[in-house]
C-alpha cells in the first residue's frame, strides 16, 4: 500500500487527483495548492473537500448569515453566541441553557430509520459538547403527501428512528411538527432540536490550547460509516482488491451514546477537560481542525492509534469516517488517569491519539509518516465564500388570489370543519407522538400537543424553560421575508401562550439548490426577515443550521425556515394549558381575524395557494406577548390560533379534556364571514377561557395593551356548537384521530 | 477458523408479531405461498480451529443462560465453515 505522504506530495507535484469526484471546484483545488505551496496529499484533499463542502463550510449562505451578527440585538442573556457547537443563554439562578436545531434530511431519505436516529444522536452530542446535560428533544418533520407511496416508505421509518434513538437515550420528546406537502415528496425534512442545561461555570468550548495537552478520542470505535464519496480516494490510492465501496449511511448506537453522555457529564463534573468537540459530519477531520484552529493552532495526531471497528480502513477513511457516538477531548496530562478511570467505569473506550503542539500546523502521521501538514484554520474556517446570484422567482407572476366557498349554514360549517380537522396536516398526531417517550426524566411539564414543550429545570424553585418550533412554508413561499418573521412570531406566541417569556432563537433553514437564483433569493429574503425581526424584538439568534439542495430535479421544496424559540418561566406550576378545563367558562379570542386565506390549510384543502402572506404587525405581536404574560393568572386555558385557524383550535381545546363549547360567530362582524372566523390563519390571535368573574380584569388589560378582545361563547356540554351547527365531541374525536392510524397502520 | 452458529427462535406457542408482519407483507408483494413466518435471531461465534466438544458444551450453556430465554425461546447450535 502506497501511503500518500507530504514527502511524496512534494516529490510528485503533478499527480492527477480526483478533486472533481470529491466535489471540489477547479479554483478551490487551486486554492488548496496555493495554501500548502504544493499539491495536497490524498488525506489533506479528503479533509479540505469535506470541510469546504456546502454542509460544513456554509459557503453559499455565509454572506447572508453574517446579518445575524451585524443586526444582533444587545442581549444580557447571551453567554455563548454563534460559532460554537450551540449557543448558550442565561436563564437566571445560575443556570445556563443551550439549544440548537439541525437537519438530517438527505440521510433520512436514503435510510429513514438510521438517518433520523443519527440526526437525533448528532444534535444531542452538540448539546453535550457544551458541557450541558441534554434534557429534551423535539423533531419538526415534513413529508410528501400523506397518501404518497414514498411517504409510506419514509414516515414510519423516520418516526421509529427518532423514537428508537431518543427513547433509548432517556430524553423526553416534547414537541415538533408533522407537516405534509407535495414539495417534500422525495425530500423529507428531518429537523431535530435538543436543549440542555448546565451551571454557568460548567460551559465547555471546542478549543485546543496548552502545549503538551493530550488529544483523547473517546466513545465508539471508528468504522466505515458515512464515508461514501471519499471511497474514491481509497480506490485510487490503494492496491486493488480491497473493499473500496463504503456505506454512505451511518448507523446509530443509542446505548453507546447514553453511556457516553453519563461518562462525559461525570468528566465535566470533575473539570477534567480543557476543550471538547463531538465527532459528527466530517468526523476526525472536522473535530481536529476545529479544535486546533480555535486554540493556538498546533496539534499532532497519530492516526494509527485510532481504535478501529474495521481494520481495513485507510488513513483517508479514518479521517472522514462519520461513525457515531464519538467525542474528542483536550486533557492536561495530569488529569488523564482520572479521565481514564471514569471511562473505564462506563466501559467507554478512550485513547490518546495526539497532543497540542507549539507549532501552527495540524500534523497527522500514520505509522510515523507525515500525511497531513496544514494550517487548521484554512481547513476549518477559510473555505470558499460564494456570493451566488439571486433573482425573484418567476412563480410570483402566476400567483392568484383565493376563491373559496362562502360558509353559512349549519351543514356547511359542519362538513367543512370535519373535512379540515381530519386532513393529514390538522389531524391528531398521537400516532407519531405516542411512539416517543415524553415522560422520562420526570420534568416534562408540557409536551405535544400543547403549544410549547416545557421542562422544569429546578425542582426547588420551579424555574423552567419552554421551547417551540414553527414554520409556515406556504407563507414563506408567498413572501419569504415576511414568512420568516411570521414563523418567528408564531414560535414566540406559542411560548408566551403557555406562560413563558421568549428569550432566544435558533433556526434550521431548509431550502432547494443555492445554485438556483430563485431559491437563493428566497434564502436571502428569509435571512433578512429573520435578522430584522430578531433585532426588532431584541431576541438573540444563538445558532442555526442551513440545509440546501432539498429538491427533485429543478423543483425545490417550499422554503422552510424552521424557527425554534426558547422561553423562560419562573414558576412552571403557573403554566397555561390549551385544553378547556371546565364548563361555564367564557371563551374568548384575543386579536382580530382578517379575510386573507392565502397559504392556509383550508385553502390548501380546496387546492388553492393564494397570492400573499399576511403582513406581520410586530409591535402588536410584542404587545400581545406582554398581554399574555401579564394576563396569565386570569387564563383557565390558552391556545395559539395558527394552522387550521379557530376551527382547529376549538377542536383541540374541546377534545383535550372532553369539554364542549357553544360558539357564536356572527358573520356580519367578521371580514370574510364565518369562513374566515373559522378557517383563516390570521396571525396574532389566541383562544382563551376565563372565569366570568375575571372578564372585566382581562378586558382592562386588553385595553391597556391595545389588543382587541372578542367573546365567542362559553364552555360546557358534549358538543362543539358553532352557530347552528352541533358537532358531538365523539364525532369530532373520530374525525380528528382516525386519519393517521388509517394512513400508516 | 470456524463459526459456531446459534439460532434462537420464539417457541411456537409464543406470539410473534414481527413474523406476522412479514407474513402479512409477503402476499402484498405477490409471494402467496407462505403459510406462516417466524422471525428469529442468529448469533455467529468465531473460534480458532475446529471447535472442541467442550467448547460446544460451553456454547450450549451460554445459549441456555444468555443468548436465549428458555421461557419463550428455543435454540439450535451448529458449526459452519
Amino acid at each position, binding site marked *: 500500500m502506497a501511503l500518500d505522504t507530504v514527502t511524496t506530495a512534494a516529490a510528485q507535484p503533478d499527480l492527477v487527483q480526483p478533486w472533481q469526484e470529491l466535489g471540489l471546484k477547479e479554483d478551490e483545488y487551486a486554492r488548496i495548492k496555493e495554501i500548502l505551496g504544493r499539491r495536497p496529499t490524498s488525506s489533506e484533499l479528503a479533509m479540505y473537500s469535506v470541510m469546504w463542502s456546502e454542509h460544513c463550510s456554509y459557503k453559499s449562505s455565509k454572506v447572508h448569515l453574517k446579518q445575524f451578527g451585524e443586526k444582533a440585538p444587545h442581549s444580557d442573556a447571551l453567554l455563548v453566541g454563534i460559532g460554537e457547537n450551540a449557543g448558550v443563554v442565561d436563564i437566571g439562578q445560575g443556570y445556563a441553557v443551550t439549544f440548537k436545531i439541525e437537519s438530517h434530511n438527505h440521510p433520512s431519505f436514503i435510510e429513514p430509520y438510521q438517518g433520523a436516529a443519527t440526526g437525533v444522536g448528532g444534535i444531542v452530542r452538540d448539546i453535550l459538547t457544551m458541557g450541558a446535560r441534554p434534557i429534551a428533544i423535539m423533531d419538526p418533520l415534513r413529508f410528501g403527501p400523506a397518501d404518497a407511496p414514498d411517504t409510506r416508505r419514509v414516515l414510519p421509518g423516520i418516526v421509529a428512528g427518532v423514537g428508537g434513538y431518543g427513547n433509548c437515550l432517556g430524553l423526553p420528546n416534547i414537541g415538533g411538527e408533522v407537516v405534509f406537502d407535495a414539495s417534500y415528496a422525495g425530500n423529507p425534512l428531518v429537523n431535530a432540536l435538543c436543549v440542555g442545561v448546565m451551571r454557568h461555570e460548567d460551559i465547555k468550548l471546542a478549543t485546543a490550547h496548552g502545549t503538551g495537552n493530550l488529544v483523547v478520542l473517546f466513545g465508539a470505535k471508528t468504522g466505515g460509516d458515512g464515508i461514501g464519496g471519499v471511497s474514491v480516494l481509497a480506490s485510487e490510492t490503494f492496491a486493488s482488491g480491497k473493499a473500496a465501496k463504503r456505506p454512505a449511511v451511518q448507523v446509530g448506537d443509542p446505548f453507546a451514546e447514553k453511556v457516553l453522555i453519563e461518562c462525559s457529564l461525570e468528566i465535566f463534573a470533575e473539570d477534567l477537560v480543557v476543550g471538547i468537540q463531538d465527532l459528527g459530519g466530517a468526523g476526525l477531520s472536522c473535530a481536529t481542525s476545529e479544535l486546533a484552529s480555535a486554540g493556538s493552532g498546533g496539534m499532532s495526531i497519530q492516526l494509527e492509534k485510532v481504535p478501529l471497528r474495521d481494520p481495513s480502513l485507510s488513513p483517508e477513511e479514518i479521517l472522514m469516517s462519520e461513525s457515531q457516538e464519538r467525542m474528542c477531548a483536550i486533557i492536561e496530562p495530569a488529569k488523564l488517569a482520572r479521565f481514564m478511570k471514569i471511562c473505564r467505569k462506563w466501559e467507554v473506550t478512550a485513547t490518546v491519539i495526539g497532543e497540542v503542539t507549539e507549532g501552527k500546523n495540524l500534523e497527522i502521521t500514520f505509522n510515523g509518516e507525515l500525511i497531513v501538514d496544514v494550517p487548521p484554520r484554512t481547513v476549518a474556517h477559510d473555505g470558499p465564500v460564494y456570493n451566488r446570484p439571486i433573482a425573484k422567482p418567476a412563480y410570483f407572476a402566476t400567483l392568484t388570489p383565493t376563491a373559496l366557498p362562502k360558509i353559512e349554514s349549519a351543514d356547511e360549517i359542519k362538513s367543512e370543519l370535519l373535512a379540515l380537522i381530519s386532513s393529514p396536516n390538522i389531524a391528531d398526531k398521537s400516532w407519531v407522538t*405516542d411512539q416517543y417517550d415524553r415522560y422520562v426524566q420526570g420534568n416534562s411539564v408540557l409536551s405535544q400537543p400543547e403549544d410549547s414543550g416545557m421542562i422544569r429545570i429546578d425542582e426547588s424553585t420551579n424555574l423552567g424553560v419552554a421551547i417551540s418550533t414553527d414554520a409556515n412554508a406556504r407563507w414563506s413561499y408567498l413572501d419569504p421575508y415576511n414568512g420568516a418573521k411570521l414563523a418567528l412570531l408564531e414560535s414566540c406566541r406559542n411560548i408566551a401562550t403557555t406562560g413563558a417569556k421568549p428569550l432566544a432563537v435558533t433556526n434550521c433553514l431548509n431550502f432547494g439548490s443555492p445554485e438556483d437564483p430563485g431559491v437563493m433569493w428566497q434564502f436571502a429574503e428569509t435571512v433578512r426577515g429573520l435578522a430584522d425581526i430578531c433585532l426588532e424584538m431584541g431576541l438573540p439568534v444563538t445558532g442555526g443550521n442551513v440545509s440546501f439542495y432539498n429538491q427533485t430535479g429543478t423543483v425545490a421544496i417550499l422554503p422552510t425556515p424552521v424557527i425554534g424559540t426558547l422561553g423562560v418561566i419562573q414558576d412552571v406550576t403557573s403554566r397555561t394549558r390549551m385544553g378547556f378545563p371546565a364548563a361555564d367558562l367564557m371563551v374568548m379570542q384575543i386579536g382580530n381575524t382578517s379575510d386573507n386565506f392565502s397559504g392556509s390549510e383550508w385553502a390548501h384543502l380546496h387546492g388553492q395557494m393564494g397570492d400573499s402572506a399576511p403582513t406581520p404587525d410586530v409591535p402588536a405581536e410584542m404587545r400581545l406577548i406582554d398581554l399574555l404574560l401579564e394576563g396569565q393568572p386570569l387564563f383557565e386555558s390558552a391556545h395559539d390560533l395558527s394552522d387550521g385557524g379557530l376551527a382547529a383550535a376549538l377542536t383541540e381545546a374541546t377534545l383535550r379534556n372532553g369539554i364542549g363549547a357553544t360558539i357564536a360567530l356572527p358573520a356580519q362582524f367578521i371580514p370574510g364571514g364565518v369562513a374566515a372566523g373559522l378557517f383563516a390563519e390570521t396571525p396574532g390571535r389566541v383562544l382563551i377561557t376565563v372565569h366570568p368573574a375575571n372578564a372585566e380584569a382581562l378586558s382592562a388589560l386588553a385595553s391597556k395593551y391595545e389588543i382587541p378582545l372578542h367573546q365567542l361563547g362559553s364552555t360546557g356540554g358534549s358538543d362543539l356548537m358553532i352557530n347552528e351547527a352541533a358537532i358531538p365531541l365523539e364525532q369530532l374525536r373520530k374525525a380528528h384521530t382516525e386519519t393517521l392510524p388509517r394512513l400508516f397502520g | 477458523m470456524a463459526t459456531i452458529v446459534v439460532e434462537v427462535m420464539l417457541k411456537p406457542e409464543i406470539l410473534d408479531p414481527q413474523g406476522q408482519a412479514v407474513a402479512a407483507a409477503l402476499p402484498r408483494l405477490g409471494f402467496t405461498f407462505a403459510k406462516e413466518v417466524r422471525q428469529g435471531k442468529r448469533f455467529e461465534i468465531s473460534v480458532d480451529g475446529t471447535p472442541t466438544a467442550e467448547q460446544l458444551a460451553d456454547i450450549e450453556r451460554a445459549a441456555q443462560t444468555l443468548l436465549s430465554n428458555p421461557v419463550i425461546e428455543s435454540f439450535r447450535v451448529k458449526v459452519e465453515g
Partner: protein
Amino acid sequence: MRVGVVTFPGSLDDSSALRAIRVAGGIPVPLFHASDDLKEVQAVVLPGGFSYGDYLRCGAISRFAPIMSSIIIAAEHGFPVLGICNGFQILCESHLLPGALTRNQGLHFVCTDQPLIVENNSTPWTSGYTKGDRLVIPIKNGEGSFQASTETLAELESEGRIVLRYTESNPNGSKNDIAGITNARGNVVGVMPHPEQAIESLTGPSEDGLTFFTSILHSMVGR
C-alpha cells in the same frame, strides 16, 4: 427508611424513581450495577430504561450484574423488590418472576396514559391501594407484551398474583391484560407501567403512582 434504586448502563428512569422515593418520604439510595453492595437498603427498585440497549433481549444482560446476585439472594428471603418496565424485564430474566415480556403486538413503542385496575393490594408495594382502584399511569415501552404458558397464567390467576391489569384497552397484547405480577411470596413485584412518572400532577397524568412508594415505606415500618 432506605430504598435503593439500581443504575444499570442504559437505565433511564433511575432519577425519577429516586425522586419518587424522596417525595414519598423515604431516603433514596443510588446503587450501581457493578457492585454487589446493597448499602443497607430495606427495599430496592429496578428502574425503567434500555439497559445494555435492550440489544440481546430486554434485561438479559443486566440480570448477570453483580448487584443482581445480591438482589436475587435477598429476594428469595423476602426482601422487597419492585421492577418497573425494564426492571420487570430483568426480574423475569432473573426468574424471580415467571413469564416474559415480548415485542408489543403493534410493533411500535407505545407511550400513553394507561388506565389500570389494581388487582392485588397485599404486596408491600401496593398495600396502600384498594382492590379495584382505577389508576391512570404512563406506560412507555416497545416490549411490554406479557407472555407465559397456559399453566403459568392459570397459576398466576388462581393465586391472585396479578397485581395490575390494563383496562379499557390492552396496549401491547399482554396475555390476560396483565400489566403487573408478583411472586408467590408477594415481595417481588414487576409492573410495565411507570408509577414513578405519576407522582405529581405537574409532570404526570395523575398522582396515582405515588402509592407504590408510600406503600413500601409503610410496609417497612410495620415490620
